[in-house]
């Protein structure tokens, strides 16, 4: 198992390296930082524009290879350069990474756990009313793009607040200004702000996983070993959980690594729509500013998160499937 995981990890490291290099080259070719400085009010002199661009290391009068090698040289030492506004990318990264991870972590855990349980539950109750209701709901959710879901939740919250004349559901940013004393007050405030963003990225995940889990669970339900497990004296519930769900989870680990791509995209939309100052919001605003260094930094983050989740899926797969563990 260790050899298998080490091999996967090595492969992911190569992928990450190539992907990051390509993303720097692509961003440098596609974005135009010169336009950002030339569009400034009051206008800058061409010499000043050049000076700014050279200071950032993104001057397009230098050959691309020179820029890339210098950037890579700094990057291996952990220095990702400066944003287009002159602040260090590393500091901005550190400020925003927590915000995104909170959202992603909650969304992943809530989405996966609820989705898997809902899928297993509906498989056991196939064709009953509860199964049909969950199936219909997940179909509707899968057909709603994440950004639209977030927008609809926001509109629902505005409508609710207006109708009831209260401010129960707050949804802009991560916390209310002024609430920073008292553990419970802060906790409650943060929790309320987390509600809509988390729900909007978790719902799609729940819908997707429950569909997959339902079908893998259905394949397992009729199997002989499940009957054997009950015959040797396990209750149906224990047999289902220990022998059924475990086997049905194996094919899910593949969906998990692909599902994370969608989740990351969903988090980007959610942050932008709900005004969370995380990596996704940074990305969208950086593209508007033609900020090469920041865009690459978000790409690095995305690649690391996606590959880590892929690796996690491999670990899960190996842990659940003895054929891989003992290979």
């Amino acid at each position, binding site marked *: 198992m260790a050899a298998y995981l080490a091999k996967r990890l090595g492969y992911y490291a190569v992928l990450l390296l190539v992907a990051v290099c390509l993303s720097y080259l692509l961003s440098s070719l*596609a974005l135009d930082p010169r336009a950002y400085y030339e569009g400034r009010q009051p206008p800058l002199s061409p010499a000043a524009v050049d000076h700014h661009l050279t200071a950032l290391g993104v001057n397009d009068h230098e050959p691309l290879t020179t820029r890339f090698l210098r950037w890579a040289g700094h990057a291996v030492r952990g220095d990702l350069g400066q944003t287009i506004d002159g602040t260090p990318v590393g500091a901005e990264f550190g400020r925003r990474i927590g915000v995104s991870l909170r959202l992603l972590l909650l969304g992943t855990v809530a989405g996966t756990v609820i989705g898997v349980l809902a899928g297993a539950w509906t498989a056991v109750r196939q064709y009953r009313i509860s199964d049909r209701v969950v199936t219909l709901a997940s179909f509707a959710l899968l057909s*709603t793009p994440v950004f*639209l879901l977030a*927008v609809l939740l926001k509109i629902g919250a505005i409508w609710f607040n207006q109708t009831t004349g209260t401010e129960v559901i707050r949804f802009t940013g991560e916390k209310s200004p002024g609430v920073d004393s008292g553990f419970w007050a802060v906790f409650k405030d943060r929790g309320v702000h987390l509600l809509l963003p988390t729900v909007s990225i978790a719902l799609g995940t729940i819908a997707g996983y429950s569909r997959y889990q339902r079908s893998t669970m259905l394949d397992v339900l009729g199997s002989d070993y499940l009957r054997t497990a009950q015959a040797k004296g396990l209750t149906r519930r224990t047999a289902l959980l220990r022998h059924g769900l475990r086997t049905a989870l194996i094919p899910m680990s593949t969906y998990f690594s*692909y599902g994370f791509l969608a989740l990351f*995209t969903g988090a980007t939309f959610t942050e932008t729509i709900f005004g969370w100052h995380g990596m996704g919001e940074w990305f969208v605003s950086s*593209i508007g500013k033609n900020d090469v260094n920041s865009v690459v930094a978000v790409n690095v983050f995305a690649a690391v998160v996606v590959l880590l989740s892929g690796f996690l899926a491999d670990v899960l797969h190996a842990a659940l499937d003895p054929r891989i563990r003992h290979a």
Partner: protein
Amino acid sequence: MTAVIETAAADAAGQGAEPIRPVGRAGVVLRRFVRNRGALAGGVVLLLLFLLAFVGPLVSPWDYAHIDYSALREGPSADHWWGTNRIGQDVFAQTVRGLQKSLVIGLLVALFSTVLASLVGACAGYFGGWTDRVLMFFVDLLLVFPSFLIIAIVSPRLRGGGWFAFVALLAVFGWMITARVVRSMTLSLKEREFVRAARYMGVGPFRIIWRHVVPNIASFLIIDATIAVGGAVMSETALSYFGFGVQAPDVSLGTLIASTTGAAVTYPWMFFFAAGLLIVFVLAVNLVGDGLRDAIDPTSRRKGTTS
């Protein structure tokens, strides 16, 4: 297989009665599809949406870009069927135009990405060895970044290229997972007798892929392409919502939703027609895709199957 059983059963039942007309595969698939209520409803809705998107602009008295200064932010009326927006454009004309754009983009993206996926997947599976390794590394590489990020980065450069460049971009980043499935299906097809026979008879590899491999995975490709239309429309609207897709003055469902979100509570007609049509369209596509899967391949009990 089922067709044979069904005709045999009918034969046994109708012995001596009127002659039995054998049912072809297309007939069986069609019958199974129509029997699935959800799929049938989805199909009808899709048909209606296409009618709305392509006939709507012809019957509407207004052009989607025309500004009626005498009617700003007006609710639905006989004059403006779905009301007008903040600068006096007709919401019906705008929505059907946006729907048309989104539908065309979704269909083209699904077509291109399915062709690309089957080409790459079949080559990787059939040739194996280094071809396989290189192609699959490429697939993994494209899957490292969420495609939204890459398309968003490239999109400012493509503003001049119009919406067709956008279609190409969506297709280029939408084929990887399908290619993997095609690859694994090809791997098992490669060992089948008819492929081996063709190979020993000296048929070239590309001819084998085209004549023997692709027809055998066609049912999967049809189903996958159908689902891909829904996925492509979702990506298109999301990118357009954030300004990385279809550019003004052209409209798509994504740009319509983006420009009217703020008015959704006060002037609901501006927002909810576009948002509703988007959800209904993707839902209908998914139902049809699911119905097709049941009709073409009744042995598979994959996601979303209820019968």
